[in-house]
């Protein structure tokens, strides 16, 4: 599931962009170090393969539902985690640009949710240990299934945390998580079965394909680098959140709570959130009312509102409508001019 | 020896699984000559072609291009002189637009921009594709794809052109254009194909490959007219030679 631009606050979007960018630089370095020049066309064509495979549906026996390959795990098995991460990042970028899946600001979130967890968590920590040396078909299938479930659960949790931390929707953590996690358990099972089926075929047809995975590459220095990048990400997140909290009205960075992500996991946190959203709403009022009405509004919202709405709201609506008309009109004029110039020339 | 554009001597190659793809293959090609390479599926045609510009390294025997032996030291210069046109143009047209694809080789060779531009225009003109310059490869017809793949190789101004199945998937008109184009080129040409009519029209000489060996090497008409030889190696005598064409002889 893709995070959407419209649901992401700049702080959350920015932090995850930083995290994904750091992972991208790390992965690009690692891939360059492998010095397999054949890897570049291979990565590209495999990315195209995942894209194509995502359009082919598999029926899940006995349920009447269908699904498809996720791709991240498959790529990690074939290319190794770093190359797989880069390919997933490109796939998501193409989807964001061409199909408007997600969007550019949420791209960082999506790369993290769908790339990082599959390539750097589910693959090395679940798939590899369970699959072992790949000699047993059953273990490979089980590994694919488990790793897909883990990747999808973590990815869904990522979506939930990022959405709630962005604070653009009213969904509470517990509600949203209860909605997302079971759905993605089902999706994870389907993806796992699909991946296992493909791996089973490849094992029979051309087993050597599954064995070429350069991992890990010179562990020590990479770990250091990895740690450094992680620290940098946290720093960026921290700076952004500080910026958010110190400029509450200027840029209204919404409720940035990424650093307090664990707190959000507690279900009894909802009161705190309600308070936060109330507080936030009052902070937003300047956008909608005359500056003088702000104090009134904070003092007594219910009473202050009619006074506020009379002036600003109407002018806002009229102005909004006028702006839209104007924008469209300018658009038409420019286009008309352009085409008449073209016709004349 | 220096008179030959290409000389292959005693070439042998076995795939990792033990399949012997080429055994004791030897032949010479003179500059400007057009040579057809025919043979049944799996006869070793593609393997031979991949050797000619170093995509595969000979396990035994040697390859000389205009007198220079192909080895890791000469690989770069040989690749610039031997242009390989792949069977599936989609494998070869890997860049986002026709012009970028044609420019790929010259850019890799480090030529200056004006020279790259000159080569791109020249090569596209030669194959009649200048109007498709900015098109992406998937917006080309099968015939245009072939022509673009050929242009991408011509842009390197190779002295030897090696082509793998240039006429597959072409409709009759596109195939006719290709034949005219191939016939008009000045380069030394090696064309591996099942299209025996094309060989008759373009090549003066033909090699018959069977199970990794050259079983016949001679003038196109006399070799392809040898019905027992053709049938013995999974081929047949082309129709074009079975009846008299007054304006072709």
């Amino acid at each position: 599931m893709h995070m959407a631009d419209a649901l992401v606050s700049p702080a959350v979007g920015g932090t995850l962009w930083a995290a994904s960018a750091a992972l991208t630089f790390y992965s690009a370095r690692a891939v360059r170090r492998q010095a397999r020049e054949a890897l570049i066309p291979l990565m590209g064509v495999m990315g195209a393969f995942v894209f194509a495979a995502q359009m082919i549906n598999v029926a899940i026996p006995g349920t009447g539902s269908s699904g498809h390959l996720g791709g991240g795990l498959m790529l990690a098995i074939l290319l190794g985690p770093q190359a797989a991460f880069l390919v997933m990042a490109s796939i998501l970028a193409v989807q964001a640009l061409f199909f408007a899946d997600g969007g550019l600001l949420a791209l960082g979130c999506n790369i993290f949710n769908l790339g990082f967890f599959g390539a750097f968590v589910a693959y090395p920590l679940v798939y590899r240990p369970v699959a072992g040396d790949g000699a047993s078909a059953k273990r490979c299938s089980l590994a694919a299934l488990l790793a897909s479930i883990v990747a999808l659960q973590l990815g869904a949790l990522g979506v939930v945390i990022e959405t709630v931390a962005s604070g653009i929707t009213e969904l509470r953590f517990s509600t949203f998580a209860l909605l997302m996690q079971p759905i993605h358990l089902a999706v994870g099972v389907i993806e796992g079965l699909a991946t296992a089926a493909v791996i089973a075929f490849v094992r029979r047809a051309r087993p050597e394909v599954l064995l070429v995975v350069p991992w890990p590459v010179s562990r020590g220095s990479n770990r250091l680098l990895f740690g450094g990048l992680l620290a940098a990400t946290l720093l960026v997140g921290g700076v952004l959140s500080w910026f958010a909290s110190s400029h509450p009205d200027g840029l209204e960075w919404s409720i940035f709570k990424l650093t307090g992500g664990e707190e959000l996991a507690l279900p009894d946190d909802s009161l705190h959130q309600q308070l936060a959203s109330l507080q936030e709403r009052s902070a937003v009022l300047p956008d909608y009312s005359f500056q003088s009405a702000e104090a009134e509004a904070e003092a007594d919202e219910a009473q202050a509102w009619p006074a506020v709405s009379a002036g600003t709201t109407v002018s806002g609506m009229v102005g909004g409508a006028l702006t839209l008309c104007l924008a469209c009109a300018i658009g038409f004029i420019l286009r008309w001019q352009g085409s008449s110039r073209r016709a004349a020339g | 020896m220096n008179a030959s554009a290409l000389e292959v001597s005693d070439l042998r190659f076995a795939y990792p699984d033990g399949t012997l793809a080429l055994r004791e293959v030897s032949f010479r090609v003179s500059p400007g000559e057009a040579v057809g390479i025919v043979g049944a599926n799996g006869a070793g045609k593609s393997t031979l072609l991949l050797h000619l510009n170093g995509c595969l390294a000979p396990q035994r025997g040697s390859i000389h291009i205009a007198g220079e032996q192909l080895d890791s030291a000469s690989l770069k210069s040989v690749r610039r002189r031997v242009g390989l046109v792949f069977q599936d143009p989609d494998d070869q047209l890997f860049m986002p637009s026709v012009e970028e694809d044609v420019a790929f080789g010259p850019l890799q060779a480090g030529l200056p921009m004006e020279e790259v531009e000159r080569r791109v225009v020249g090569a596209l003109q030669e194959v009649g594709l200048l109007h498709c310059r900015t098109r992406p490869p998937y917006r080309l017809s099968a015939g245009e794809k072939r022509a673009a793949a050929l242009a991408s190789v011509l842009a390197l101004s190779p002295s030897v052109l090696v082509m793998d199945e240039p006429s597959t998937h072409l409709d009759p008109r596109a195939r006719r254009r290709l034949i005219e184009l191939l016939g008009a080129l000045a380069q030394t040409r090696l064309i591996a194909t099942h299209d025996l009519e094309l060989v008759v029209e373009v090549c003066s000489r033909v090699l018959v490959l069977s199970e990794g060996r050259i079983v016949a090497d001679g003038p196109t008409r006399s070799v392809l007219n040898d019905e027992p030889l053709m049938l013995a190696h999974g081929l047949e005598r082309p129709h074009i030679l079975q009846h008299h064409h007054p304006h072709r002889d």
Partner: protein
Amino acid sequence: MRAESRWLELGQMDDAARMDSAVHRLDPRAKILVTLAFLVVVMSFSRYTLSALTPLLFYPLVLIALSRVPLLPLARKLVWAAPFALLVGAFNPLFDREPMLHLGGWTISGGWISFANIGIRFILTVSAALVLIATTGMHRLCAGMERLAVPRVLVAQMLFLYRYLFVVSGEGSRMVRAAQLRAGASALSLRVYGTLVGMLLLRSLDRAERVHQAMLARGFEGSLRRLDAHSFGWREAAFVLGWLSFFAVARVWNLATLLGSAAMRAGG
């Protein structure tokens, strides 16, 4: 079938990107920078903002108009991409029932306003991304990214990914069609699926190998050199500065409210 029409759309975007206009000719870096700035500005508005966001629509609309890319395919994409954002946003009116606006006899809760806000944000951000790709195209975008210090490995393989999307998906859909003709179902059974997608995978691996050979055959030595005629000149500088100042003005002042009150004053 949705999947196939998606490819058609990809082609439409590509055609749009190969048109020629002042916007198309700009250095891709300028468009990337402005798009990013635009997104950040849109994001920075609070979730109850409505009217102040509307002036930002000028950006995608003016670019579409100047570049003359067709509007309809872009609009269709907007509609298709909408469900997830709107679905999640649709909870807002349910949970946030605090009255926020009174208009005549109507009371509008904060939830409805933030829901509408999500809708506007969605239109703005998605259309900005679509306009970027429709006026730039994948390969120029990649060239721009490379010059903006995005790792070369990523950019190079992204070009290959884009190039072979069409080829591999064409192969895939032919295989699926062949399987469906025999099986008669729209989704494949797990076993058939494994074989079919596995075959597609092996074919793709072989293709990657052949592509690599084709690259080597033309002198590839590890780094992709490309034609790139763009340069960051005064046009680009003007484009970036102009839009950034417009965004700044629209961020600081609510232009729509100003316009509205001016119009009302003028009207009576």
